[in-house]
C-alpha cells in the first residue's frame, strides 16, 4: 500500500518540547493572564466551622463598599442552575444537594456561603470582611470510620452518611479459605492528601447578552466537560458555550471536573453581564478544592504452605467528604476489583463502602483507586514476613507469567497477552541489585544501621474505553501553506501533548513535528479530555487516524500531479518524492496549494481541500504495568527516613517520547514519596483543617528526592500505535514501594506499620511501641 506511514522517524525520539520556548520565557498564557475589558473579580466567603446552621447573614455593608458590584448568597444563586451534574455521574444516582453556595447551613470548613464580585480582588476580599454572619455550631461528622453509624447527618436530605455500600460475596473465596495453611489479615490505611497543582483552579467567564453566548477561559483538564456542565448549569445549548483552552498549570485529576465555585462564576457572569474572573488562592486550594486517598482496606489473604496465594477477602471504606468534586465517587469498587493485580490471586470477595463527612470533598487524584496496589503490595510484604519468605521470591512465585496470559481475573478483569509484570519485576530487581542490597542491609544491621527495601508491582487499567471516556476525535487540516493544524478534545496540562501528538502526526502524515500545531478547546470535537492515562492511546489513535486519512489524499494528489504511481511515492518531512528518485518531488505546501487554490488540477472527481476527521473508540482497557523498588535508611534517633535509590521498570508499550515518559513517571513517584513521608491534610477532631499553607502541607522539594532510574520493557499494546497509558503509574507504585521500604527498615524492631504517613513522629512512635512491648 502506498499510504502506509514510513518507518517511525519521530516516534520513539526524545523530541524537545514544542511548548517549551514560550513556557521557559514566561510567555505561556494561563487563566490568570486573561484580562478582559470591564472584567470583575470574585472572592468567596467560606465557613470556619465544619457543621453549623447559618442564623444570620447580612451582606448590606459589603454591598455598600465602593467598587463592589454584587454580593451573592446561596439564596441568590442556587436557583439559577438546572443541574450541577458531572458527566460521569449518572443522573439517577443520589448525590449531595446541588448548591453552588451553602444555603442555611455549612457542611465543612471552606464551604462557600457568600460570593463577592468587585472591581478588584483586593476590594472583593475587603467586602468579605464586611459580611455579617452568625452560626449556630452543630456536632460535625469528622471520623469517617464511624460516620455511617452517626446520628449527625452531613446531608440530611440523603437520610444517611453512607453514600455507597457494595458487597460482592464469592462462595469460592470462602471455600478456598477453609483448610488454608495461612490466613493473614491486616487493615491498611491511607491518609488525607491533595493534588496541589502549582496553578490553583481558576476561571474567567464572559456573557454576551442577546447573542446568548458564554465565553469561558478555564484552567481545566477537560474543555468539553467545562462546556457540557456549563451548559447544564446555565440551561443553554452546548453551542452557546465557547471554552478557550490556554496553558494549564497542572491538575492531577483536580481539574477534570467543575467545582461549585466555577459554576457560581458562570452564573454570576450571566447575571451581571460582565466578565468575571476567579482565581483560587492557595488556602482555598488546600482546604476546599478536593482531598483524596482517605481510605482503609481490610485484607484477609489465604496462602498455602508453599506460599501460593489461594484467595482474598477485602473490605474497603473511604471518605467522600461533604461535596465530592465530580460527584459521589466509588473508587473503592475499582480498588477492590483491581486488587488481584499482576498475580494469581484466586477467588476474591469484596465489599466497598463510601461515607460522607463534614470535611473537604474527595476528588480524583492521580490513580484514584491506587488503594488496590497500596493494600496488595503492603499485604504481600506482610505475608512474606509472616510465612518467612523473601518478598521478591514470594512475588516471583505468584506473579502472572507469559504462559498464564491471557488471564481472566476472578473479579471480572481480563488481562490481554500484552502485559509484562514478570519482566518488569525482574528488570527492577536487577537494576536495584537485589541480592547485593540484602547483603549490604544485613551488614548494616550488624552495625546498628537500619536500611530497608520496598517494592511494588502493579497493573494499571489505562485509557478506559467506556461511557463518556470511550472516544476522542482529531480533526486534521493541512493548511494552504502546508502547515498542519490538529483540533482535539484533549486538555494537556503538563503531559506534553503539543509535542507527542505532533510526533505521531509527523510520522503518520510525513511531516516534521514542528510543522504540526495542536489546538485544544473551542472548535475541537467532543472528548473527555486529559486524565486517566488516556491521551496517548485514545487521542493519539484519533490523531493517527486523521493523519492517515489526509496522507492518502496527499499521495493521490502528488501522484496525479507528478504523473507517478502512488505506490512509488514516499512522504517524509513535508516532501513527497518518488522512491529512489529524490529529485522528482513536491512539497506538502505545493500539494496543499493545489488542493485549495487550484482544485481544477486535482484528480477527476476528488473533493477539494486537505482535511480529515477521525474518532477512535478505545477497548475497555489498555493495561500498562510497572515495578518500583526503592531503598532507604532510617535514623532511629530522629525518625527521619532518607531514600537512597529509586528504580522503576515499566511497560507503557511503544514510547512516543522517552523523555516525556520518564518525566511522567518521575513526577508521579515524587507525589507518592510526598504522600507517604510528608504530605498530610490534617483535621482536628472538630473538623478544623490544620494544613492551610505550604508551611503545613509539605510538598517535597528537590532536597528530599533521590535520583530516579527508569528501565523500560516494551510490549506493544493492540491499539494502533502500540502505546499504553503512563500518566498515573508513578503515583500508583510509589506509595506502597516507599511504605514497604520503611516497614522493612523497621523490621528489626519487630513492629508492623499499617498506616501512613510515615513521618518522623510516626516512625518514632513505632519504635517506642516496640520498646514498650
Amino acid at each position: 500500500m502506498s499510504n502506509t506511514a514510513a518507518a517511525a522517524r519521530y516516534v520513539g525520539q526524545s523530541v524537545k518540547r514544542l511548548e517549551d520556548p514560550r513556557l521557559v520565557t514566561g510567555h505561556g498564557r494561563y487563566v490568570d493572564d486573561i484580562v478582559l475589558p470591564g472584567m470583575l473579580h470574585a472572592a468567596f466567603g467560606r465557613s470556619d466551622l465544619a457543621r453549623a446552621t447559618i442564623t444570620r447573614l447580612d451582606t448590606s455593608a459589603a454591598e455598600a463598599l465602593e467598587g463592589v458590584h454584587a454580593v451573592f448568597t446561596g439564596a441568590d444563586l442556587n436557583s439559577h442552575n438546572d443541574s450541577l451534574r458531572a458527566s460521569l455521574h449518572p443522573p439517577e444516582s443520589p448525590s449531595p444537594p446541588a448548591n453552588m453556595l451553602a444555603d442555611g447551613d455549612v457542611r465543612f470548613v471552606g464551604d462557600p456561603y457568600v460570593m463577592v464580585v468587585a472591581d478588584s480582588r483586593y476590594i472583593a476580599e475587603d467586602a468579605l470582611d464586611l459580611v455579617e454572619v452568625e452560626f449556630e455550631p452543630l456536632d460535625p461528622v469528622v471520623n469517617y470510620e464511624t460516620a455511617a453509624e452517626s446520628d449527625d447527618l452531613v446531608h440530611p436530605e440523603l437520610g444517611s452518611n453512607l453514600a455507597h455500600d457494595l458487597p460482592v460475596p464469592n462462595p469460592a473465596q470462602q471455600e478456598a479459605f477453609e483448610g488454608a495453611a495461612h490466613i493473614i489479615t491486616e487493615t491498611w490505611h491511607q491518609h488525607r492528601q491533595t493534588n496541589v497543582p502549582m496553578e490553583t483552579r481558576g476561571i474567567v467567564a464572559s456573557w454576551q447578552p442577546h447573542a446568548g453566548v458564554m465565553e469561558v477561559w478555564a484552567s481545566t483538564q477537560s474543555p468539553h466537560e467545562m462546556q457540557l456542565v456549563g451548559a447544564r448549569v446555565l440551561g443553554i445549548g452546548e453551542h452557546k458555550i465557547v471554552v478557550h483552552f490556554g496553558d494549564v498549570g497542572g491538575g492531577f485529576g483536580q481539574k477534570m471536573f467543575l467545582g461549585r465555585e466555577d459554576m457560581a462564576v458562570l452564573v454570576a457572569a450571566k447575571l451581571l453581564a460582565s466578565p468575571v474572573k476567579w482565581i483560587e488562592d492557595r488556602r482555598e486550594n488546600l482546604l476546599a478544592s478536593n482531598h483524596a486517598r482517605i481510605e482503609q482496606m481490610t485484607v484477609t489473604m489465604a496462602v498455602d504452605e508453599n506460599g501460593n496465594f489461594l484467595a482474598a477477602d477485602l473490605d474497603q471504606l473511604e471518605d467522600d467528604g461533604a461535596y465530592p468534586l465530580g460527584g459521589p465517587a466509588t473508587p473503592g469498587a475499582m480498588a477492590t476489583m483491581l486488587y488481584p493485580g499482576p498475580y494469581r490471586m484466586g477467588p476474591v470477595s469484596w465489599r466497598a463502602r463510601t461515607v460522607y463527612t463534614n470535611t473537604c470533598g474527595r476528588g480524583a487524584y492521580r490513580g484514584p483507586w491506587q488503594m488496590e496496589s497500596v493494600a496488595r503490595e503492603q499485604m504481600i510484604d506482610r505475608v512474606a514476613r509472616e510465612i518467612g519468605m523473601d518478598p521478591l521470591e514470594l512475588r516471583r512465585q505468584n506473579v502472572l507469567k507469559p504462559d498464564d496470559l491471557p488471564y481472566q481475573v476472578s473479579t471480572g478483569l481480563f488481562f490481554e497477552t500484552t502485559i509484562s509484570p514478570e519482566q518488569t519485576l525482574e528488570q527492577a530487581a536487577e537494576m536495584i541489585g537485589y541480592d547485593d542490597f540484602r547483603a549490604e542491609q544485613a551488614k548494616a544491621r550488624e552495625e546498628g544501621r537500619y536500611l530497608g527495601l520496598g517494592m511494588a508491582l502493579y497493573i494499571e487499567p489505562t485509557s478506559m474505553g467506556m461511557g463518556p471516556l470511550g472516544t476522542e476525535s482529531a480533526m486534521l487540516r493541512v493548511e494552504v501553506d502546508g502547515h498542519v493544524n490538529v483540533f482535539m478534545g484533549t486538555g494537556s496540562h503538563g503531559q506534553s501533548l503539543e509535542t507527542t501528538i505532533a510526533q505521531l502526526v509527523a510520522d503518520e502524515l510525513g511531516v516534521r513535528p514542528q510543522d504540526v500545531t495542536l489546538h485544544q478547546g473551542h472548535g475541537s470535537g467532543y472528548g473527555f479530555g486529559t486524565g486517566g492515562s488516556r491521551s496517548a492511546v485514545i487521542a493519539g489513535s484519533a490523531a493517527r487516524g486523521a493523519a492517515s486519512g489526509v496522507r492518502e489524499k496527499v499521495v493521490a494528489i502528488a501522484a496525479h500531479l507528478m504523473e507517478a504511481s502512488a505506490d512509488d511515492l514516499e512522504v517524509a518531512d513535508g516532501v513527497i518524492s518518488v522512491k529512489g528518485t529524490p529529485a522528482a518531488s513536491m512539497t506538502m505546501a505545493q500539494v496543499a496549494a493545489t488542493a485549495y487554490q487550484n482544485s481544477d488540477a486535482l484528480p477527476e472527481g476528488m473533493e477539494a481541500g486537505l482535511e480529515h476527521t477521525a474518532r477512535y473508540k478505545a477497548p475497555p482497557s489498555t493495561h500498562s504495568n510497572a515495578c518500583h523498588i526503592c531503598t532507604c535508611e532510617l535514623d532511629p534517633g530522629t525518625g527521619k527516613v532518607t531514600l537512597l535509590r529509586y528504580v522503576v521498570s515499566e511497560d507503557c508499550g511503544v514510547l512516543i517520547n522517552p523523555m516525556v515518559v520518564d518525566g511522567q513517571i518521575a513526577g508521579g513517584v515524587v507525589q507518592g514519596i510526598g504522600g507517604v513521608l510528608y504530605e498530610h491534610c490534617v483535621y482536628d477532631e472538630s473538623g478544623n483543617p490544620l494544613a492551610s499553607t505550604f508551611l503545613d502541607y509539605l510538598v517535597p522539594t528537590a532536597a528530599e528526592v533521590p535520583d530516579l532510574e527508569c528501565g523500560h520493557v516494551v510490549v506493544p499494546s493492540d491499539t494502533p500505535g502500540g502505546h499504553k497509558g503512563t500518566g498515573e503509574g508513578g503515583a500508583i507504585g510509589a506509595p506502597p514501594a516507599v511504605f514497604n521500604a520503611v516497614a522493612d527498615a523497621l523490621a528489626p524492631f519487630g513492629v508492623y506499620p499499617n498506616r501512613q504517613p510515615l513521618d518522623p513522629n510516626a516512625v518514632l512512635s513505632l519504635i517506642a511501641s516496640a520498646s514498650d512491648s
Partner: protein
Amino acid sequence: MADQVPLSMTVNGRTRRGMGEPRLTLADFLREQALCTGVHLGCEHGVCGSCTVLMDGEAVRSCLLFAVQAEGADITTVEGLAPDDETLHPVQEAFRDCHGLQCGFCTPGFVVSVAAFLEANPDPSDDEIRHGIAGNLCRCTGYQGIVAATRQAAAVLKGEGQ
C-alpha cells in the same frame, strides 16, 4: 480603600510607571501594570517560589514585597533573561533540553532562581544544587529534569559547553 501612590521602577530594562495602593504587591504590579505575566502566583505566602524575580540582582519573592518597596529598583523577571526573541538564556535552554518542566507554571520562578543561584555558586555539587533550588516547588517533574538542567546550565555558563 487607601489613596493611590505613584510607582516607578525599571523592569527588564524599561522604566515602568504606575499607580497603586500601598498594599499592592510587587507581583501584582509586575503582572498587571508592567505586563510581566510570567511572574506566577502559586501560593502568595512566600513558599513556592513561582513569583521569584531579581531585584537589584537579588532573587526575591515578589508576592512578599509591596510594590512601593521596589520604588526605583531594577527588576528582572523571567521575560528579561533571554537576549532576544529567537535565543534562550542558557538556563532556559537547559530546562528545555533536560525536560525540566511539564505544566510550566513553576518554571519562571525556577529559571530566575537557578540563574541567581549559579551567579552566586557557579560550580555547585549535586547536593548543593538540590539544596540550592529547594526554595522552589514543582509538582510535575519530580525535580529530576530541573536538577539536570541546573547542572547543564552551570557547565554552559562556565564555558564548558554541554
